[in-house]
């Protein structure tokens, strides 16, 4: 079978478009996967904080549970900036609750993440020292750091 130039060009164009679309699709899928990982990381972070707060509500809180969760929070907060991979934002066609600013306002976002890192490090230090009263006071600061960043860089929940 002999192809005339028109058919050849059409096929070449079709192949080119498919490859480009495939590439874009692969990038999208990568971005979406990163966003999903981020979502799960945040959920794990929320669960760790809840585990700590629930323990504090008890009459005799288990210091080990508090220390474990505080360590998880510290590690997770330190890693948080790495979850915001390039290409995993709302402007990349990814389904995410992150606002575009989380990816464009680098200075502001870094400061917000650093605040959480500092507050969770303080929380962890108190928890490892078994200072339950200190932990009780510090959780408000950690919660404040969560909230400050969510207010600025997360799409508000629909009600």
């Amino acid at each position: 079978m002999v192809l005339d130039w028109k058919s050849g060009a059409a096929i070449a164009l079709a192949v080119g478009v498919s490859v480009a679309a495939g590439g874009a699709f692969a990038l999208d899928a990568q971005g979406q996967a990163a966003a999903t990982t981020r979502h799960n990381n945040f959920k794990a972070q929320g669960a760790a904080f809840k585990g700590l707060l629930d323990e504090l509500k008890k009459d005799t809180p288990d210091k080990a549970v508090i220390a474990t969760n505080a360590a998880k929070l510290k590690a997770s907060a330190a890693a948080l900036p790495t979850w915001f991979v390039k290409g995993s934002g709302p402007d990349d066609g990814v389904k995410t609750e992150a606002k575009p600013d989380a990816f464009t306002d680098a200075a502001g976002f870094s400061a917000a993440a650093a605040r959480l890192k500092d507050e969770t490090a303080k929380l962890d230090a108190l928890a490892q020292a078994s200072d339950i009263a200190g932990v009780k006071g510090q959780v408000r600061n950690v919660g404040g750091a969560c909230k400050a960043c969510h207010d600025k860089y997360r799409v508000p929940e629909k009600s």
Partner: protein
Amino acid sequence: MAAGPSVRARLWDGPTRIVHWALVVLIAFAWWSAEAGKMDWHRLAGYAVLALLAFRLIWGFAGSASARFSSFVRGPAATLAYARTLPSRVKAELPGHNPLGAWSVLAILAVLIAQVVSGLFAVDIDSIEAGPLSDRVSYDTGRLLAKWHHWSFSALEALVALHVAAVVFYLAYKRINLVRAMISGRQHFAQDPGLAFAPAWRAAVVALVAGALAWWVATGLKL
């Protein structure tokens, strides 16, 4: 022209009216405090709504005649029959909730139960704000219940809008002032329906039980 109603008689007892207007104020306050992020106040409002709800449910079985569910909840046939009379401006001689309004009462109570229960277990995105029983569920379940808390509030808004629309309809079209009756407790009747009213001491006992229940729940069911 038919003769107008001649007797002004007691219809709603004090506890029923207090619960009604306290719910109006507290639901508005709960909405505002949540919007303003004043979650300590929001929780307190929720506990108060829980107490009122518990009171009203018990009062629906042990209260005055017009407050009892058995006196106003009717089946589909009676409800439909009443609904057919809606276009008529002739006043029905019903001491209290009509069969259609009865379903509105039950719907509002059901949504309020959903609202209170979901709120008790709800967890906010940062975990820091949570209902008093949230330590009994996982973060994911608590988040799901927070969503339900929002949804049931939307349902409540719709029911409140319908309730107010119905009250306006009765006032403007049927010339019956339901608001005044819910404030004064009295309504005009062709003749005194002779309703039975529960004694004050019974209201006090039920209030004590409802208050204790709300307190117990608020402290996380600790004994």
